[in-house]
């Protein structure tokens, strides 16, 4: 009796997860139907976002999300791989422990703090260097790259650490240098895991709100240069959700949320199902 009760309790809790995920999709879809019916495909291809005349095109926000994430990945990937190599192969055991733990702890710092740092310390420097406003696509990309760096480095290192010592030792025995071992043994062995980890970090970056809200500018325009202020989906949501006054405005914001959810779902699913599963099997 109690046994059955307990089993059902655990089962219900487990199904709750599926239910919530399905529910999120249904709710976001329902809330955004008005916008989708009004604008159709124009919603994602037009960049005119004008609440005063009830015109909503999300292209600028989508572009901003993709561009800032791309920029962040471009900057973070080489550094993260460097850090991962340093942590798994180069550093002395004592340093390794210290740096390894600090990288993991830094990954736990709330993203809003990266945003504050960006606004007060990084944007002024960028402004002096480039002469523009400082706030914009470049600032967002850089702050985002710094924010995902610890996470990216930690998971990449974990992927590299799965390489069996025996493989590495054989390569050293053949006279390989450290770099030979890294590029010809470790990276090929852990390739799927590394790529999966990087994509996982990409999934985090694309949905990140607080680190970029401060420094992106929230201007609904496709940026003309890397320095111009623009917006992204999470930034638009964070800034405008509580200001929406017409139902179409509201529905368009839900449309943005749905777009973002689908984008990140696809990215994370690719990382999980394709690369990380392959890595686990190997």
């Amino acid at each position, binding site marked *: 009796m109690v046994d059955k009760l307990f089993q059902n309790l655990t089962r219900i809790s487990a199904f709750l997860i599926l239910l919530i995920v399905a529910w999120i999709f249904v709710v976001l879809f329902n809330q955004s139907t008005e916008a989708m019916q009004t604008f159709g495909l124009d919603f994602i291809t037009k960049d005119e976002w004008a609440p005063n005349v009830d015109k909503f095109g999300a292209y600028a926000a989508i572009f901003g999300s993709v561009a800032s994430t791309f920029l962040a990945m471009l900057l973070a990937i080489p550094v993260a791989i460097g850090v991962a190599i340093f942590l798994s192969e180069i550093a002395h055991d004592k340093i390794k422990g210290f740096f390894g733990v600090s990288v993991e702890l*830094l990954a736990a710092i709330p993203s809003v703090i990266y945003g504050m740092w960006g606004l007060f310390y990084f944007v002024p420097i960028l402004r002096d260097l480039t002469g523009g406003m400082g706030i914009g696509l470049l600032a967002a990309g850089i702050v985002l790259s710094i924010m995902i760096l610890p996470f990216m480095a930690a998971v990449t290192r974990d992927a590299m650490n799965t390489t069996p010592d025996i493989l590495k030792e054989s390569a050293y025995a053949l006279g390989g240098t450290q770099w030979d071992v890294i590029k010809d043994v470790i990276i090929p062995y852990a390739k799927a895991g590394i790529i999966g980890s990087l994509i996982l970090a990409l999934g985090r970056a694309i949905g990140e709100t607080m680190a970029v809200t401060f420094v992106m500018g929230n201007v609904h325009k496709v940026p003309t240069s890397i320095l111009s202020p623009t917006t992204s989906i999470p930034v638009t949501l964070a800034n405008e959700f509580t200001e929406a006054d017409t139902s179409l405005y509201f529905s368009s914001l839900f449309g943005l949320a749905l777009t973002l959810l689908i984008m990140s779902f696809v990215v994370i699913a690719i990382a999980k199902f394709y690369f990380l599963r392959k890595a686990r099997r190997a």
Partner: protein
Amino acid sequence: MTAVQKRIFINKLALVFSTLSAVIALAFLFWILGVLVMKGVSALNWNIFIYEGAPPGYAESGLKHALVGQLILVGMATGVGVPLGILAGTYLSEYGKNSKLANTIRDISDIMMSAPSIVIGAFVYAVVVIPMGHFSAWAGAIALAIMMMPIILRTTDDMLQLVPGTLREAAFALGAPKYKVIMDVVYRGAKAGILTGVLLGVARVAGETAPLLFTSFNDNFFTTDLNQAMPSLTVTMFNYATSPYEDWQQLGWAAAFILSMFILGLNILGRLILLTRKKGK
């Protein structure tokens, strides 16, 4: 240059580059940490814990409202998210095992763990805030609980699977029903691991701002009314930091410092629990 010299040279070059990137990365990260500590410590004083929010320019302004609000929100989210997460994790590890269904739930939950937090805020806005007609602490706590559940589920599942099957069989052989085996043997064996998972889950959720922006919203005054908007450290930090007033910005840094110390503390505690357990074995 002979071939060997060339290889040694390339090796050195690569290692220097990799070390350099580690140094650059850590320099940036310690810069941020340094700013956080310097700004935060200089803004700390007792007033922060005594007074609630005040208009800019008032000396008697503090963060009491946000501190208490944060504790209430995270506490409520923990109260809902942790039991549900542990139960769901128990189902996967003890009943579902490697069935197709259990693996599907694992995958979906893993994806949920990385889903954009602001989207969860929007969802909760639609299902809780709109029907209620106003922002509330309930909505904020629900959003945080939704974020927390997959994290707890994952660690519980992993930790329960580490408990050796022979322990379960021994308990079954004594005639114990399955729920008793799980409660008295499996949970006990995985206690430290689950506790660490809970601490890390709480730490992760405590730093979230985006799901609170339009669920619990914010308030500049002390409140314990769960049906009303409730201030939190993160949203307060966001509002104060983006305000043009210097003293509000100061308070924002103080909030950032307090919150980070709390989160780092939980993380370190979680690690220590796992570490001492490993040593004890």
